[in-house]
């Protein structure tokens, strides 16, 4: 049994609100997803103008494509869909067999396979312990394992750890003993978490979203020095900001705080002038006390940060007790409709409690939040 809850921008009919099953007192609304089936997991990738849903081989895009809200685009892939990455212009579709396709966000569009450049041979050269040059099997782009995109960036990563700015190869990470854990994109930047807990970033960092001290463009992946030595377990990229949580249960945010999305104060006391809006270096947060269970001695274990998720200008933190915390822009209901009168939150506040005995996952659209519950 699964249930999808939604709050945020829905003016283009991206989500079908379940009219029968919604109490007006809840902060989130239940939605019905198209073609749901319990056979396969549902993959959802919301962008601003539409939302993409994949079940098995089938892909549905619903939103505004031409002239009316609620327009649908439906295609079928050759094999099961493994991952989606959506931006307003197109949707990237990764299949189970590692092939990458693109679907333009317009009516009657078809899946088009993406051909990636070969990675540079030089990068695949390693020395053996005896000093001989050793070629690593990396002749063709190979199977793609991770994808992400934003309005100004499209990234894919191969099983051989080649990083693509689609379709060119940007960088080759070591092929051995180096594993991609997570890849996320903002509007114009990308961040990557590897199996060691190191975070790399690249793209446009003019608003501090890369986590490097100097603002600027970073062409290739660069380790975020400020987080080096801290084992990061989960990352998120918002429009112009980023966030990470560590194995110690700490939360870090950096980038633009224009609407409080970093959980940092927006206005100076007095309310006339703003605090700085750009924080180029990761900011460590003191998390507020969570639920009653946290009063117990074993508090840390109960409410430690589990996952982090970011929209265009909002950030969500999921804690292990099932409570979801949010900060940032909420004028379109991004953080729940209970905040109707507020335009933003500039410190993390509890916005939703997941019911007990459910598995849950949180996804952010640019101006929306989706919560998937399953038993």
């Amino acid at each position, binding site marked *: 049994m699964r249930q999808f809850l939604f709050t945020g*921008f829905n*003016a*283009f009919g991206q989500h079908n609100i379940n009219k029968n099953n919604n109490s007006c007192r809840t902060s989130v609304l239940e939605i019905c997803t198209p073609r749901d089936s319990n056979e396969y997991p549902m993959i959802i990738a919301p962008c*601003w*103008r539409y939302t993409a849903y994949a079940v098995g081989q089938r892909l549905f895009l619903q939103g*505004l*494509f*031409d*002239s*009316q*809200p609620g327009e649908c685009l439906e295609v079928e892939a050759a094999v099961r869909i493994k991952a989606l990455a959506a931006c307003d212009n197109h949707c990237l579709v990764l299949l189970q067999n590692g092939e990458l396709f693109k679907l333009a966000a317009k009516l009657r569009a078809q899946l088009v396979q993406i051909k990636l450049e070969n990675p540079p041979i030089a990068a695949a050269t390693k020395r053996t312990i005896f000093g001989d040059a050793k070629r690593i099997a990396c002749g063709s782009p190979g199977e793609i394992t991770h994808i992400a995109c934003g*309005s*100004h960036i499209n990234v894919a990563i191969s099983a051989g750890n080649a990083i693509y700015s689609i379709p060119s190869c940007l960088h080759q990470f070591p092929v051995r003993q180096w594993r991609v854990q997570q890849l996320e994109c903002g*509007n*114009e930047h990308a961040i990557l978490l590897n199996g060691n807990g190191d975070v790399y970033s690249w793209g*446009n960092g*003019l*608003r501090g979203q890369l986590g490097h*001290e*100097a*603002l*600027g*463009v970073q062409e290739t992946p660069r380790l975020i020095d400020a987080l080096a030595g801290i084992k990061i377990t989960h990352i998120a990229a918002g*429009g*112009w900001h980023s966030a990470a949580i560590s194995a110690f249960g700490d939360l870090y945010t950096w980038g633009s705080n224009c609407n409080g999305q970093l959980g940092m104060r927006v206005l100076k006391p007095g309310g*006339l*002038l*703003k*605090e*700085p*809006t750009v924080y180029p270096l990761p900011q460590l947060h003191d998390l507020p006390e969570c639920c009653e269970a946290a009063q117990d001695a074993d508090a840390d274990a109960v409410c430690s940060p589990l996952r982090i998720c970011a929209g*265009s200008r909002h950030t969500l933190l999921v804690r292990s007790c099932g409570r979801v915390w949010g900060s940032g822009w909420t*004028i*379109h209901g991004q953080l729940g409709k209970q905040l109707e009168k507020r335009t933003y939150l500039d410190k993390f506040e509890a916005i939703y409690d997941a019911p007990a005995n459910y598995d849950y996952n949180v996804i952010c659209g640019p101006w929306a939040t989706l919560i998937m519950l399953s038993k």
Partner: protein
Amino acid sequence: MFAAAAPLLELIKLLPRFADIEALLEHEIEARYILKRAADHLELGKLEGSSSSEEISYLIGALVDKHWERIHSGHFSSVPLVIRKVYALGCYFKIIFMLLESTSHEQREKCGAILDEAQLLGCTDKLYAKSKDLQAALMSYLDEDVIGNNSKPLPILAPLERISSRCDIPQLNAPSILEFRNSCYQAEQPTLLLNTINHWPAISKWRDLNYLLKVAGNRTVPIEIGSNYVSDEWSQQLVKIRDFLYRQFGRETSSDDNQEVEYLAQHELFAQIPTLKSDICVPDYCTVSGDTPSNVDIKAWLGPRHTISPMHNDPKHNLLCQVFGSKIIILASPADTPNLYPHESEFLNNTSQIDAAIPDFERFPLLRRTRFYELLLQPGDCLYLPPKWWHYVRSETPSFSVSFWWE
């Protein structure tokens, strides 16, 4: 028909019909959908408060928000013009829908700020036939009750007595164009030009801050906050000139009371406020290279005592003209660039890490090799700076300067 007041109906008539903007929006799917609904809605003259009015007003707000995001993604110079045009159109419609809801003083203030953003971030050029008329009509409608309300008057700054002071560069008294070309422009020689802007109406008019309040008070401008732009505390934000003037000049002791220094710096104020433009004129020296005055960037620099621009250089020829107040300026030649420790980041590599006022020779030993030139810029003075010359600028009193940049 609308139950709206007559002036508002006149404004609505100046909005585009969908046919006027259809070509512009050909590839803009959401703008086409939303602006069509809004334009048709207003054209049909549906009653205020009808059910779709609220929905369309929300959609327009979303369109403006989304295009604000688009304008802020990527480098500003590479944002497609159509996105900035849609933003401006969206702002116009948003203002009208807000005024249909209420025309209270507060609401007009909010609308005035949106109109300024339409101009600052959006592109209002050639949107449709009547767009300039709408812009002007909105401005006068929104400004109506803002000016002349009886708030406390601002000070009239006393004219400064000219003092003789150190000047490490040549001075010329109202040189001819030819003389300027030979001795300054071609020789790449920073020079203090005396008695060249005394005829500007600005010299006598702007010291009266109530005049600035009257002609510019309601406009929104970018302000730098914090003593200088490389410090961590520094930020930049949009504020109304009126609020800025009251905060920085309104009190008896406008400094020393823990107040943060705000600086209206490097802003193209004169394109935004034509009345102020008529108080100055582009010096003939700027056309020495055969350029027309229209290719000259004119920027305003208005702030209290102790605004600081750290040691930096600019790529263009610069004529810095002092309207009121005085500024200490420290210069260094482009030849000394390796001795000035420029910042490494892409944004700040035209800026030195040093504090030119108190050079730290321990931390920056190469500074000993640098030759600094110091001078005091007084009302009516102009400083000519060739491209790439390093300069540090600190205001000694409340100050208003106008800079002219040309290639």
